[in-house]
């Protein structure tokens, strides 16, 4: 394979090529880092590159493939599915002896003394960890513009945002700097950037993936999940990171679905759409939704119907309160989680002048950026004496209503909800920076699933004004394999659609020509 082919290959294709001996992880790694070196000054997806360790991991993977090839097909089949596959990590995943910033100045200089559980699992699976990606500070934002470090552009249009908060992880995979990446999703931070950059991005069921070693934002909502360019690849990565972890009491003992490693492909995948029942919630076609987005989503729904799916409109009436509920619960939890940044044990410090309190005020006043301050203020207020019942407890009750809406859909026998992921395509830099509420509204279609703990996936379903549109599938708890099977079916149905062959428009411009 040429360097251009290698960087575009899916994890599945890479695995097949490694097994056949037609490509090596070392060649792939060289192609990816060369692309990053040429393009990231423009793209801004990366905060830290792990070149030496990644090289050692690639060599080790190639050695294992060579030994297994010499031994025979049984040895090749026994190799872990992610062996030699590069993965990018959002910069809130702790990696031993590596900086973790969470996009914040308050963690500048912090070097992690331990690995997050998902990092341990990815290393054990033989994945190559390429480096860390840019993000909105503490995962608070929908455009990655709240990173304290750099601007990440959308490879589809350099003057537009990649979405957020996992914008660096999305941009890296969309720009073919990595076949896979890890994001986190508290209110849409995987699905929304996947939608805006034309990727598959999944938020698993709450509890599916351990959060040990991942910088916390809102602990009753946060989940870790994959970005990929295909449903099959997303399933491979999800499988590798999922499962019970003794270090995270909220991680589930729910067994992993082996189907994740055996999703149907081609005609079999397309045929699997027949007879599926999908609920189309009318409240998700929100005011302010761009007509091109609505059109692409409705066309995707028609394609599912044409393949034999049954689609019925449903009402999820509590949806209209999800935004306000989320913006009480998430900041309240964030204000508690971020209390740990005191400038004493790690990170940037303002201690020294004055007394201890002066040190806290200086550390936190200087260390946190504008959106994080807003959320800490909101959360502290919602939890403060006299307001706790009116805001926080009220929001928790409305949260029950949101969860009950979904439960009615499952009780009625639907396989999944189909909806838009984002009401808009990628917007221009700065368009929402002066107006926090307009930024918050960009997550209106994704945050209800977080409030209910449900799995959701965004998959590409076309272009509007030349920019990617995402179709969101939301499922019942623990239905990730089913959602990704549907996603693979939709991919098969639309395999020859003209929009599938369009590459991000500004890819060549990122390096001034060569790709």
């Amino acid at each position, binding site marked *: 394979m040429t360097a251009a082919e290698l960087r575009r290959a899916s994890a599945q294709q890479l695995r097949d090529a490694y097994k056949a001996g037609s490509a090596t992880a070392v060649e792939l790694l060289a192609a990816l880092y060369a692309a990053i070196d040429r393009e990231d000054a423009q793209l801004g997806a990366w905060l830290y590159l792990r070149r030496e360790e990644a090289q050692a991991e690639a060599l080790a993977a190639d050695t294992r493939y060579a030994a297994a090839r010499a031994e025979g097909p049984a040895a090749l089949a026994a190799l872990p599915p992610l062996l030699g596959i590069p993965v990018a990590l959002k910069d809130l995943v702790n990696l031993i002896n590596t900086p973790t910033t969470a996009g914040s100045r308050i963690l500048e200089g912090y070097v992690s003394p331990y690995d997050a559980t998902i990092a341990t699992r990815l290393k054990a699976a033989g994945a190559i960890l390429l480096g860390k990606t840019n993000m909105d500070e503490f995962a608070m934002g929908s455009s990655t513009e709240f990173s304290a470090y750099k601007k990440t552009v959308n490879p589809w249009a350099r003057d537009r945002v990649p979405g957020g908060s996992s914008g660096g992880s999305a941009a890296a995979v969309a720009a073919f700097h990595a076949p896979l990446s890890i994001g986190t999703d508290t209110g849409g931070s995987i699905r929304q950037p996947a939608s805006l950059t034309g990727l598959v991005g999944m938020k698993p069921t709450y509890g599916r993936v351990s959060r040990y070693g991942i910088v916390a934002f809102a602990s009753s909502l946060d989940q870790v999940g994959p970005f990929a360019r295909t449903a099959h690849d997303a399933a491979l990565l999800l499988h590798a990171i999922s499962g019970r972890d003794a270090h995270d009491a909220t991680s589930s003992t729910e067994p992993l679905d082996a189907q994740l490693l055996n999703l149907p492909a081609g005609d079999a995948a397309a045929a699997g759409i027949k007879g599926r029942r999908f609920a189309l919630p009318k409240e998700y076609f929100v005011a302010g939704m761009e007509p091109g987005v609505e059109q692409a989503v409705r066309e995707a729904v028609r394609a599912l119907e044409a393949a034999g799916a049954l689609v019925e409109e449903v009402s999820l009436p509590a949806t209209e*309160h999800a935004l*306000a509920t989320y913006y009480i619960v998430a900041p309240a939890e964030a204000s508690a989680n971020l209390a740990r940044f005191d400038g004493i044990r790690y990170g940037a410090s303002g201690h020294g002048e004055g007394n201890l309190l002066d040190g806290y005020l200086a550390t936190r006043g200087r260390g946190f950026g504008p959106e994080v301050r*807003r959320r800490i203020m909101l959360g502290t207020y919602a939890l403060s004496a006299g307001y706790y019942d*009116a805001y926080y407890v009220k929001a928790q009750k*409305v949260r029950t209503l949101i969860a009950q809406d979904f439960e009615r859909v499952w009780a009625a026998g639907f396989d999944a909800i189909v909806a838009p992921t984002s009401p808009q395509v990628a917007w221009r830099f700065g368009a929402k920076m002066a107006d926090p509420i307009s930024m918050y509204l960009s997550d209106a279609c994704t945050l209800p699933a977080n409030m209910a703990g449900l799995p959701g996936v965004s998959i590409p379903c076309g272009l509007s004004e030349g920019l990617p549109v995402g179709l969101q599938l939301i499922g019942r708890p623990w239905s990730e394999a089913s959602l990704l099977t549907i996603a693979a079916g939709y991919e098969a149905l639309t395999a020859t659609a003209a929009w599938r062959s369009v590459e991000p428009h500004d890819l060549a411009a990122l390096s001034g020509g060569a790709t």
Partner: protein
Amino acid sequence: MSKLTRAEVEKVAALARLGLTEAELSKLEGELNLILEQWARLAQVDTSHVAATAQTIVQPMPLRDDTPGPSLPVDEVTRNAPAHVGGLIRVQAILSEEADG
């Protein structure tokens, strides 16, 4: 619902240990009040017969076995501290001579 006054904004910032300038506090006062208008709409929702939900996926959360295991070395843990000495993190005095009570 009530509107946040400047004094309340200052009080919340103090509770949150955020040292902010006058200009930053003024900006936040305006932004927070716009967001509170959104929150206020929740008061209209009838939740008189609804239980509060803290976590929606109800699962057993088994504790891990209480057995000793290796911990991180002390110098690894303290190396990120801005000031540390002899395996201890240096903190400013929390009591002062002027302290009341």
